[in-house]
């Protein structure tokens, strides 16, 4: 393939994804199945366009790492701690029960005990990538079944660590004394991520945010995730677990929404690539040679895991109508099985033939998940399941009714007023110093650019009712209004207008609610001056009211008149009118007293 290899490969992957995924979604099969089928189509057993499947698969596993980072970002430590029961109970139960049964079956099938342990470990794990991606795609994460499945997956991600550590021991090459050193290294790295992830990255984020160079922010976000992944790899830990941890630590930081926005597209693409690779790696040659054995393995695996999950769903009180969903979501083999079997093969524990067979079974079970989910009745009516399961439970995203874009001198007043009424408000700003200060006083301020619709989306624009645009820059304000009108037509926009002409522009764009930023404070000061000149306080206030009403009328008259020329002449007329109007008001006041009031 030569020098064009990289670009050509990229072209093939992207083309396959672009063709297969929308088609699969249109047919109601979901994106995961679309990717998997695209992989089958372009892989060695399909069109044969791609050959180096193994290394692509390895690279694409990073998509899972990014996925876990994003999941972590949506779970703060408090929420994670509150999930400890399902994680340990459901997750622990699943791994131990499934592993035990698989071990027994493997022994019965005549495997040597060390191999049986390996097979039991590898096959007890489910696919985080497939399960979470499907859950997210169908918005099922907030449901009981969704959160239970997530707990199990999280436990599995943790369980991979000792499993990987056990392989050298099983292969007989483990060094007894090294265990302590390893444990110390592990503790050091995890401690480093906990401390560094918070105390080191936040100041760096602040510095980078202050430069307002978006690509550097993106670069640093990726750098952070990749760095943590490498660190974890260096001590033979799960990369996904490390980045998940980092995500949890950053979940309460002001950069949470912006990080989500930056990482999301990379996650999507890499995860897609991962599914494509799984599709490509399905060895149809082997399937053709020993079809009954392979199908038996797949069906056996799905049945055994599904049965265990069903029992757990019953034990842990998952609603009747969600038990099947829970079982189907997690009954496949997972990507960690690939990792474990590869490690075992390297340690000479697993020979090539068996590895190929197991890998094929796992890949086919992954392919079967989206197909099996089609059988699940609620799956076809996601809204029903969602309404039922998600009702009483807290959603992972925020659901504040108001978003304020811009927390400078102007937005701050609006925000404080709302805060004082306990109205939950999500605030976006791009000045790290402002953000830090405001957060100290308990405001939910996030670093982010309101011009980006994806940022607004992660800030909860889909659930919010109102968007207050309080940014300084009049042009940016108009641009935000335009884009929000297109992307989130349900959002009511309340905008800060720079001056009359800016207000006109806003009105022309269909922004019904705007406030000229200077008008009220200038009127207030005018009132003050009137009082210093001897007007009574009430009288001065009345004058300001009269002026405001006239000014508003003038505003709409000017709006009607489009030509600039005309605007100027109307403005002159208006001044003349005010000169007439105010003395007239004075006369009216005295007149009233003439007519009888004392």
């Amino acid at each position, binding site marked *: 393939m030569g020098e064009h290899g990289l670009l050509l490969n990229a072209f093939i992957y992207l083309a396959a994804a672009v063709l297969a995924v929308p088609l699969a979604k249109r047919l109601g099969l979901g994106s995961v199945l679309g990717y998997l089928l695209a992989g089958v189509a372009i892989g060695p057993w399909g069109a044969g366009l791609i050959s180096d499947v193994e290394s692509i698969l390895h690279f694409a596993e990073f998509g899972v790492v990014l996925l876990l980072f994003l999941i972590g970002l949506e779970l703060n430590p408090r929420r994670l701690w509150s999930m400890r029961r399902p994680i340990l109970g459901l997750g622990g139960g699943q791994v131990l029960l499934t592993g035990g049964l698989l071990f027994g079956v493997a022994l019965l099938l005549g495997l040597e005990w060390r191999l049986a342990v390996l097979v039991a470990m590898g096959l007890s794990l489910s696919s985080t990538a497939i399960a979470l991606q499907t859950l997210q795609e169908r918005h099922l994460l907030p449901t009981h079944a969704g959160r239970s499945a997530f707990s199990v997956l999280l436990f599995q991600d943790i369980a991979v660590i000792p499993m990987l550590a056990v392989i050298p021991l099983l292969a007989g090459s483990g060094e007894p004394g090294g265990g302590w050193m390893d444990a110390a290294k592990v503790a050091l790295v995890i401690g480093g991520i906990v401390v560094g992830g918070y105390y080191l990255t936040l100041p760096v984020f602040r510095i980078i945010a202050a430069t307002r160079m978006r690509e550097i922010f993106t670069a640093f976000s990726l750098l952070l995730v990749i760095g943590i992944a490498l660190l974890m790899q260096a001590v033979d830990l799960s990369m996904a677990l490390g980045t998940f941890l980092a995500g949890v630590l950053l979940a309460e930081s002001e950069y949470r929404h912006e990080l989500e926005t930056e990482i999301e597209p990379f996650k999507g693409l890499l995860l897609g690539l991962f599914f494509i690779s799984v599709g490509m790696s399905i060895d149809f040659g082997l399937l053709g040679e020993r079809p009954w054995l392979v199908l038996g393995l797949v069906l056996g695996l799905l049945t055994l895991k599904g049965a265990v999950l069903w029992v757990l769903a019953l034990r842990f009180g998952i609603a009747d109508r969600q038990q099947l969903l829970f079982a189907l979501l997690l009954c496949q083999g997972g990507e960690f099985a690939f990792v474990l079997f590869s490690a075992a093969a390297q340690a000479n524990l697993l020979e090539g033939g068996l590895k190929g067979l197991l890998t094929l079974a796992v890949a086919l079970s992954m392919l079967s998940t989206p197909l099996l989910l089609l059988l699940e009745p609620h799956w076809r009516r996601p809204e029903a399941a969602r309404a039922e399961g998600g009702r009483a439970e807290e959603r992972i995203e925020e659901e504040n009714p108001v978003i304020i874009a811009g927390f400078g001198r102007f937005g701050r007043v609006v925000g404080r007023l709302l805060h004082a009424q306990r109205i939950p408000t999500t605030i976006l700003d791009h000045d790290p110093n402002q953000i830090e200060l405001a957060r100290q006083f308990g405001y939910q301020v996030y670093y982010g650019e309101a011009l980006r619709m994806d940022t607004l989306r992660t800030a909860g624009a889909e659930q919010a009712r109102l968007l207050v645009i309080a940014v300084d820059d009049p042009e940016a304000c108009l641009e935000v209004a335009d884009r929000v009108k297109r992307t989130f037509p349900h959002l009511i926009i309340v905008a800060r207008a720079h001056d009359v002409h800016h207000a006109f522009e806003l009105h022309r764009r269909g922004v019904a609610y705007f406030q000229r930023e200077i008008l009220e404070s200038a009127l207030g000061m005018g009132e003050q001056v009137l009082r210093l000149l001897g007007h*009574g*306080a*009430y*009288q*001065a*206030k*009345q004058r300001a009211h009269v002026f405001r009403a006239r000014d508003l009328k003038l505003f709409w008259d000017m709006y009607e008149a489009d030509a600039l020329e005309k605007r100027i002449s109307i403005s002159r007329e208006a001044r003349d009118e005010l000169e007439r109007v105010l003395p007239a008001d004075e006369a009216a*006041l*005295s007149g009233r*007293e*003439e007519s*009888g*009031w*004392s």
Partner: protein
Amino acid sequence: MVSFAAMNILVQFVHPHPRHSRVNRQLLQAISDLDDIVVNDLFERYPDFYIDVEREQEQLRAADLVVFQHPFYWYSAPAMLKQWLDVVFSYGFAFGSEGTALQGKRLLSAVTTGHGAEAYRPDGYDRFSMKELLRPFEQTAFHCGMIYEAPFVVHGARRLSDADLQHHGEAYRRLLLMHLKQNPAGNRHG
């Protein structure tokens, strides 16, 4: 038991355009040099009708005689005084089992009218006497345990000569002085 504590008068002055009311200016002028009188100009203090309830209640606590001085707009006071009453004479302060802050204090209406005295008779323009028309204030005082004094009324305010104005100002001053010389509320029989 005789108390030598000074008598305190609180004048609630309620006029939106004092510069345009000769008579109300004259009345205020006539009492301006008296000690122990606080004039509270409500329109000046609360031009947007947002009233500092705590401050107002504090002032009331310190007063023995409360005067409502205002023009008799539509057989009542300007809206400001009604708003003031609504928020300041609150449950637990002015009425209710705990609301005893005003008990024993005196309330005096000092009002100015456009029509002459002859209008406030069954056969006049206004058909009712001032005493009848001021009943809402009288009953408000009663409800709060206050003693409602005979009102001080200046009729035909727009038609008064300078001499008349002078005369009414002095009468107002004498009335308040008389109150100042009495013992404070609650100690009159002591």
